[in-house]
Structure formats: C-alpha cells, structure tokens
C-alpha cells in the first residue's frame, strides 16, 4: 500500500483516515477545520440541542456572518426580519456553544472562504469543511476542502469526523502562458465549458501544469472555488513556494519549530510522478481568451470573441433543450456577438473574485476612466480586511471616482440573500460563480466574467475585454 504511487488527493485521504469503511460503509475521516456561517448552521445547532450533544472540538471551529449581511449601513440592525433572525441565531448558537465568531462590523468578518485563508487557518495538508459548496476554494492550498450539507455540519460539530465515500481523481493539466487580459477565472470557465457542469462528478480535481504553477494564491483560489460548478466534490493545487510565501506570518500560520515541522510534511504533499489519475483533461493556456457565460449554468460559456451559440448545433437533445431554455431566459439570440451584449449592472464581488488581487486588477483597468452611462457597478470586498487593505492602497477612491458603489464585505449580489439584488429582466456582468436562473434576483440575467472583464464592461456598457479599451 505504502509503495503504490499516490495522487495528492489520495495522500490527504490516507492521512485523515480514522476508520476504514468495510462492506460498502464509507471511510471515517478526521476534519481539521470546520467553517460555519449563518445559513446552513441553525438546524445543525438545533440538532445538537435536541440530542443533548456538545461540540467535540470548539478549537477547530470558527464562524462568520456573510450570506445575509447588508453591505451598507452596517451599523444599523439588519432590516430584513428573516435575515436578522438567521444572523441572530448564529450569534446565539456560537455564544451558547462557545464557538469563535466574527460578526458584522468585526475586521475579520467576511465571506467564509475569504476569511479562512486570510487568517492563515487554511493551510496545506488539512481536511476543511463548511456547509457551503464553495468550500472547494481552500483546496488551492493543497487541502482536501469540501462543501457539506447541514446534517453533516451537525455531524462534524458532534464528532469532528465525517463518513465519506472515496472519490475518483481527475488531473486538469493547464500548460502554457496566459495572454494579457486572461486570468484564472477564464481558465476555470474554459475547464467547465469543456467538461460540463456534471463532468467532475465523483471526482476530486487536481489542477496542474505550468499555467497553474505560475498563478498567485488568489488565482488558484478562484479556480478551486469553481470546481463545484463542474460537479466535483473538491479541487486541489499542490502547495509550493507561492503557497508557503502567502501563508508565512499570517495570524494562525505555524511559527518556529512548528513551521519547520509543517514544511517537512507539506513538501510531501504532491502527486507522485507515476501516480495514475482516473481521468485527465488538457487545456492549452496559450490560446485561451477571456471567457464569459451566455446561458444559465456555468458550463454554458464561450470566448468573449465568439457569439451566442445556436442550440440547433448541439447534437445531444438534452443540451439542445437546455440551450434553448437558457437563451429564452437570458433573452439572447443565437449568433449575437458576445461583445454586443449590453448590461445594466456590474458586480465585482463573491468568494470567487473579491480578494485584494481581484480588486487591484479591476481598479487598474478603470483607473482614470468613467463608467458607461446608465451602468451600475457594485464593488463588494470579500472581507472587511480586504476592504481595509483596499482603502489603504487607495483602491476605494479609484472605484468611487469611476462611479462605482464601494460596499462592505459579504456575499451580496452573488446570491441576493441580502438587499443587493437585480430586478427582474436586469442583466449583470458578475465576477461570481453561478449564473443560475434567479440567482441574483428573480428574473435576473447573469453573465459570469473575470474581474478585468467586469471592469472593461463597466467602462463600455457591453461585455468587453480590457484590450477593447485601447482601440
């Protein structure tokens, strides 16, 4: 067993095995870090109370408020009663059970997947779970990070373990150099368009290759974040110097002898040379364009240089029907150039693209420019700390001068649980991760884009690449 070459995912699995399942029973895995937010936890705490159970490891658990929180006037009580009740329930539950929480107004408050890495709690070699599908974000550090349901939240609270069926492994090899204006977001949108929204099902994806190695941690997080949009349970990038550099000195990063011990372990965290993946996918980074979605699932994307596809061109009847339905919902005609699509709103935010690097990238495009007439642009930093850092760097002023709204941290228009919603029929270029029907508001239409495409789109009013601003 020990001699068999292993993939990174298999090593992480082996290192966390508490009980090996027999006769089809799942393996029991230890969970190193459990992140909690207000939406998927109340029923879990309720379950603990009903069963008279306590939290096994409060010291491996941390909560923040993000999905429901307003992004302006945050000193006021949350206006919407159900949102307020959910946030209050989290505050009450964490107090009752003794869990660390970062509440609205706290400098560590923000989207749960931004908060973990910025505190240095997310590090290589861990198992990380959260009652949120985009927990896959944390896989960028070389951890096995998975979204779980509320029953599983309760299970982890009670036992610090999770019964899991083994996954298959898939290598996503991205080789080459990205052209200017092309970023991590475009890689992952291209991957999903290639393998489809169900293509990753049952798999842990490992992103590999020179294009991945040269990405910053922010870019790797963007990619791992959207693994779930390909149906995968998790996405991974093997840790390297870029990972260690990002981590060093963060509040919860190991120090001194612990750092050295960690480095010993972390250096082993890579797929063995002759390990075999269950599936492999190849993407040429050299030829990638900025990628945007035209439909209502993240797999319905094309190059920004292309046009809205014609459903009649799909051979698979299911895909054809889905494309027809998507075009109807999106109010788009086959053959329309993507760049001719005008939007009402540009949303720069979410756990996919609201880290400091994303804000810097967008700011560099709009600096000294004015937004197009009639366009609304919202900038919602991923966390309060990102907001503070952006303000130190003067990015907030660039956004304000441009005519954008500078907001407080949270999930915001990514899913519209707070007041930040699109009206029915409105169209957005959004740096978030889901373009489902109604995701950003009932009847709202979403085009997923990278931060620089979002910025260029806000300048021109139609879906645009940064290069379009020069002509």
């Amino acid at each position, binding site marked *: 067993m020990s001699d068999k070459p292993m993939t990174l995912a298999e090593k992480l699995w082996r290192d966390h095995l*508490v*009980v090996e399942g027999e*006769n*089809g029973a799942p393996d*029991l895995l*230890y969970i*190193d*870090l459990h992140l909690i937010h207000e*939406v*998927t936890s109340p*029923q879990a705490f*309720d*379950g603990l109370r009903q*069963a008279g159970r306590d939290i*096994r490891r*409060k*010291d491996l658990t941390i909560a923040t408020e993000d999905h*429901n929180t307003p992004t302006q006037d945050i000193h006021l009580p949350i206006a919407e009663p*159900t*949102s307020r*009740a*959910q946030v209050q*329930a989290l505050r009450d539950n964490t107090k009752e059970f003794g869990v*660390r929480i970062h509440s609205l107004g*706290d400098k560590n408050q923000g989207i749960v997947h931004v908060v973990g890495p910025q505190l240095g709690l997310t*590090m290589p070699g*861990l198992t990380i779970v959260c009652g*949120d*599908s985009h927990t896959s974000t944390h896989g960028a550090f070389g951890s096995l990070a998975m979204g*779980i*349901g*509320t*029953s599983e939240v*309760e*299970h982890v609270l*009670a*036992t*610090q*373990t999770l*019964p899991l*069926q083994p996954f298959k492994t898939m290598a996503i090899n991205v080789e080459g150099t990205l052209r200017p204006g092309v970023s991590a977001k475009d890689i992952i949108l291209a991957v999903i368009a290639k393998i489809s*929204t*169900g293509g990753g*099902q049952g798999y842990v994806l490992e992103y590999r290759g020179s294009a991945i190695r040269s990405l910053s941690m922010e870019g790797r997080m963007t990619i791992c974040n959207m693994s779930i949009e390909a*149906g995968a349970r998790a996405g991974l990038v093997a840790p390297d110097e870029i990972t260690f550099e990002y981590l060093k000195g963060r*509040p*919860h990063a*190991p120090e001194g002898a612990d750092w050295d*011990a960690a480095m010993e*372990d972390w250096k082993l965290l890579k797929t063995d040379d002759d390990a075999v993946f269950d599936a492999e996918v190849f993407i040429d980074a050299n030829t990638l364009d900025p990628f945007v979605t035209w439909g209502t*699932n993240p797999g319905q994307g094309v190059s920004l240089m292309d046009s809205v596809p014609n459903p009649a061109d799909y051979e698979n009847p*299911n895909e054809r029907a*889905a494309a027809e339905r998507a075009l109807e919902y999106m109010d788009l005609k086959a053959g329309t150039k993507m760049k001719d699509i005008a939007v009402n709103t540009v949303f720069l935010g979410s756990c996919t693209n609201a880290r400091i690097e994303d804000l810097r990238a967008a700011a560099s495009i709009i600096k000294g420019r004015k937004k197009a007439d009639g366009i609304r642009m919202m900038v919602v930093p991923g966390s309060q700390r990102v907001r503070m850092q952006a303000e130190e760097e003067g990015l907030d002023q660039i956004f304000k001068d441009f005519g954008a709204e500078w907001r407080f941290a949270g999930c915001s228009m990514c899913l*519209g*649980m707070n007041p930040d919603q699109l009206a029915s029929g409105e169209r957005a270029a959004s740096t978030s991760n*889901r373009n*489902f*029907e109604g*995701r950003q508001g*009932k009847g709202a239409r979403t085009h997923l884009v990278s931060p620089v495409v979002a910025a260029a789109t806000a300048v021109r009013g139609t879906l645009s690449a940064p290069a379009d601003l020069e002509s």
Partner: protein
Amino acid sequence: MERISVFEGIAAPLKRSNVDTDQIIPAVYLKRITKTGFEDGLFASWRQDPEFVLNQPAYQGAAVMIAGSDFGTGSSREHAVWALRDFGFKAVFSPKFADIFRGNSGKQGLIAGEISDADTELLWSLIEANPGVQVRVDLPAQQLSLGDVIVPFEIDEYTKWRLMEGLDDIGITMQSADAIASYEAKRESWKPTTLPAKGV
C-alpha cells in the same frame, strides 16, 4: 429516522434536466432557522406557472418524482431535500444526481435512485398517458414498478442499508469514539486551532 422498505405513491414527471438546487428551493427560503416546513419553497418560482407539473390536479399528493438527468446540481443546500420531503416526496429518480444532493438525501430518508435514460423516458410516457398513476417503490429489491412495467434502480449499498434501518449518522460514528480519540492523540502540532483567537 423512519425505516423505509416498500411503498406506493403517485409519481410526478419532472421533464427537465440539470435541475439545480436554486430551482428546487430558491435562496430566499434558506433564511429560516427551523428544520421543517419547507414545502412552500419547493420549486417556488416554477410553481407560479399554473401549468407546472406539481400544480396539476392529477399530481397532488405525489410521493415519487421522476426527473431528468443531473438532478440537484449547484448549491449544497440540504433545504432542497427538506423541501422535497416536506412536500411529501419519499423518492426521486433520475439518470444522474449531483453528489452532494444524493448524500443529503440519504441522510434525510429520501431515496435518490438512479434509473437509465431509457427508463426515465419510458416512465414519463407511461405516467403522462395516465396522470396520477401510482407507482410502487421496492427499496430492498431496488425496483420501481408501474403496472406490470418493472424498472431497476441503483442506490449504493450503504445508503440503502441505512434507509432500511432508519439509522442516524452521528449515532453510527459515536461507536468509533475510541478511534477518533487515538487519531487526535497523534495529530500534528503544526495544525491550526481557531482558539485562542489570533489576528483579532
């Protein structure tokens, strides 16, 4: 959890593929803090269309859903399963489920059984020829029957066993308390703890 074995119920055809959990229950219903009463959120936006299958008189009280491929994709919200369950569904059949949805179903006593594409089409046409027809779900035999048509379905052995025994996950894991404690005893010292809180 209730033990499940063999039951009969009205089958409703949901002739769509890629039904994501945002459609099964829109985000606005996730704000609740209770674990029951989610039936009103089930397919809330689709149900505004009077023609939608669950609005048709023949399918009132449906307990079994026959859906297109890739059911339950997207968000991990378990509320999707609660909404189906609270609405009265005991089983959903589809050629393919999203992993998280399937996992959540097993934990809440909802059967998520995989049937072939051809059988899905067959069941749709049989049901539509006779709306409101009862089907019989036999979990031990992994069979779905409608009149004399019998369709096999796939479900993993472990989930099947748990559904049949009505077992709660936490209770099963608690039996491994010693193994958990000994794993913890040898956990690496560099691994992070959230307490005491740093960076505040």
